[in-house]
């Protein structure tokens, strides 16, 4: 019986791996055959970066329950660090160094900011993280090395689909596996009830800061990929609006659902690309979609459920998966 369960789990993880590899190969083939061209590649990159941002913010906000409005700040640290390093070392090792340095710098700032502010709860934490990311932006706006408001341009471009795939899949795997570990369970218990978690002997500060640091680390990676792909960054790219965009993805996908975040990141990038042709009305339509979704489905697209293989097979056998809803 035990053995059967193990084989089943193994088959499941093999299927998942197969799906991952398939995704990679199919998109790589589409790029090779020129079906995904330069313009669509921009959307593809935006999707990947959005997925990294949304999944990592979901770890902080959706799973650990710490309401953060400062993800753009961490992203900008990763972007600027990577840009500054690769501009001096325009080689692949230089890019890897820049990416790692950017992610680590973001994580370090995340820990430094997290230690004092994570004592705050709910909206207060949101406002503190918002203030923090505004401070980071203003510092980048005024430093000489970051070239102020004009920003950095001519950053060497290294990012292509294999890089994007490795880091996007890597982030998702990192966070999913973290959540399955005892550390991840501790984080979820903090979201459910912080006082009860503390009473059960969980060092809440430690886990909150850990989640914050992992989230910031991934946001740093996303920033580095952004800088390297779009080869131009300026402080206003990482303003309050960007943090809000990421939060919208998390809430839209469903707080506490990794697959929801992935879906929402893809959906929003596609909506935004589609709306490009309505340049002026773009944000108006976007905001209306946002309000309407929130009024009619406040728990987000996925709620706290995950899209899984068993769910898909259920969907196949039952036709409608709405039946199961209470």
């Amino acid at each position, binding site marked *: 019986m035990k053995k059967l369960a193990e084989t089943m789990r193994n088959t499941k993880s093999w299927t998942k791996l197969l799906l991952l590899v398939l995704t990679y190969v199919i998109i790589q083939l589409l790029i090779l055959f020129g079906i995904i061209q330069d313009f669509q590649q921009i959307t593809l990159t935006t999707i990947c970066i959005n997925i990294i941002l949304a999944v990592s913010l979901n770890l902080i*906000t959706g799973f650990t329950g710490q*309401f953060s409005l400062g993800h753009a700040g961490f992203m900008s640290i990763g972007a600027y660090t990577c840009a500054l390093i690769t501009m001096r070392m325009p080689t692949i090792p230089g890019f890897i160094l820049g990416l790692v340095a950017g992610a680590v710098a973001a994580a370090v700032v995340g820990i430094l900011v997290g230690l*004092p*502010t994570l*004592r*705050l709860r*709910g*909206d*207060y934490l*949101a*406002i*503190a993280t*918002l*203030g*923090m990311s*505004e*401070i980071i932006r*203003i*510092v980048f*706006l*005024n430093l000489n090395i970051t070239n102020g408001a004009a920003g950095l341009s001519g950053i060497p471009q290294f990012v292509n689909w294999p890089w994007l795939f490795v880091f996007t899949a890597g982030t998702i795997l990192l966070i999913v596996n973290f959540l399955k570990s005892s550390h991840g369970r501790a984080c979820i218990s903090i979201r459910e009830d912080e*006082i009860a978690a503390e009473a059960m002997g969980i060092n809440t500060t430690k886990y909150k800061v850990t989640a914050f640091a992992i989230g910031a680390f991934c946001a740093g990676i996303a920033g580095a990929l952004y800088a390297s792909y779009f080869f131009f960054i300026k402080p206003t790219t990482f303003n*309050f609006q960007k943090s*809000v965009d990421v*939060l*919208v993805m998390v*809430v*839209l996908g469903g*707080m506490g659902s990794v697959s929801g975040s992935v879906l929402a990141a893809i959906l929003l990038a596609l909506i935004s690309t589609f709306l490009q042709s309505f340049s*002026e*009305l*773009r*944000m*108006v339509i*976007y*905001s*209306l979609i*946002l*309000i309407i979704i*929130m*009024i009619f489905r*406040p*728990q987000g697209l996925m709620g706290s459920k995950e899209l899984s293989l068993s769910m898909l097979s259920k969907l196949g056998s039952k036709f409608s998966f709405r039946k199961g809803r209470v």
Partner: protein
Amino acid sequence: MSLLGLKEGKLLEQFLHQIINGISLGSIYALVALGYTMVYGIIKLINFAHCDVYMIGAYVGYFCMTFLGFGFVPSLLAAMAVCTVLGVTIEKIAYKPLRNATRIAVLITAIGVSLFLEYGTMFFVKAQVRSYPPLTGLLAKTLQLGNISVPMLQVLILAITIILMLLLQFVVNKTKIGKAMRAVSMDQDAAELMGINVDTTISFTFALGSALAGAAGILVGVCYNSINPLMGVLPGLKSFVAAVFGGIGIIPGAMIGGYIIGIVEVLISGYINSMYRDAFVFAILILILILKPAGLLGKNTREKV
């Protein structure tokens, strides 16, 4: 010796000027912060759309003064009236259906409304910066107080702010609906059991806050003379900082917080570095949150299990 005295006099004069500028800016922040603090006090929502109501107020004032040729006071009243209607409409359409949803869902809706107002306005009036018509008559004069000359405009801003705040205090503390507001912010369920119409009370709170934001909008337009559809974002954040600084949900706290933030901002840009003034405001916010999370006038409440 006398030269030194002269120099000191100049420095003092300059300092007083800065303080006066700070008070004008602080009045604006205080007026906007009141809306944030009242709405947060009653439904625990950071109403991100509030700063755009303030922007709409500035545009209504611009429209009345430029195209309709209204004077200052009628324009002020028109801006307040339009914003009141706008605030109540937003509450009824966007927030009321979410009364029982999670707070983060309401917050995202508020952000959605904020984006809608910003970019909707941008669609109609275009993104360019517009300026208010030049002031005439009494408002264009300056008041001499000894060595210091104060523009009448700044006196007016302070006067209007104080009148509005006194009115607000009267409404909140002395009228029946004010009592209902305080009751709902204390305990919504108990207030409802006592026969208070919670929905009306919440709408009324939005109306009051939005009217004040509208007034702040037209005052900013008249005083700083340039408006654009995104003008509300940063002042909105800073007003929220002011509300948190004074203790969120506490009306006198928002007033004091607004003035302190305004004066600090002007002093920092005058004496230290104007590029870093916003960073200082947010640093103050983080410090106050860490040292006294309940704000200047707030009481620390123990957490109940």
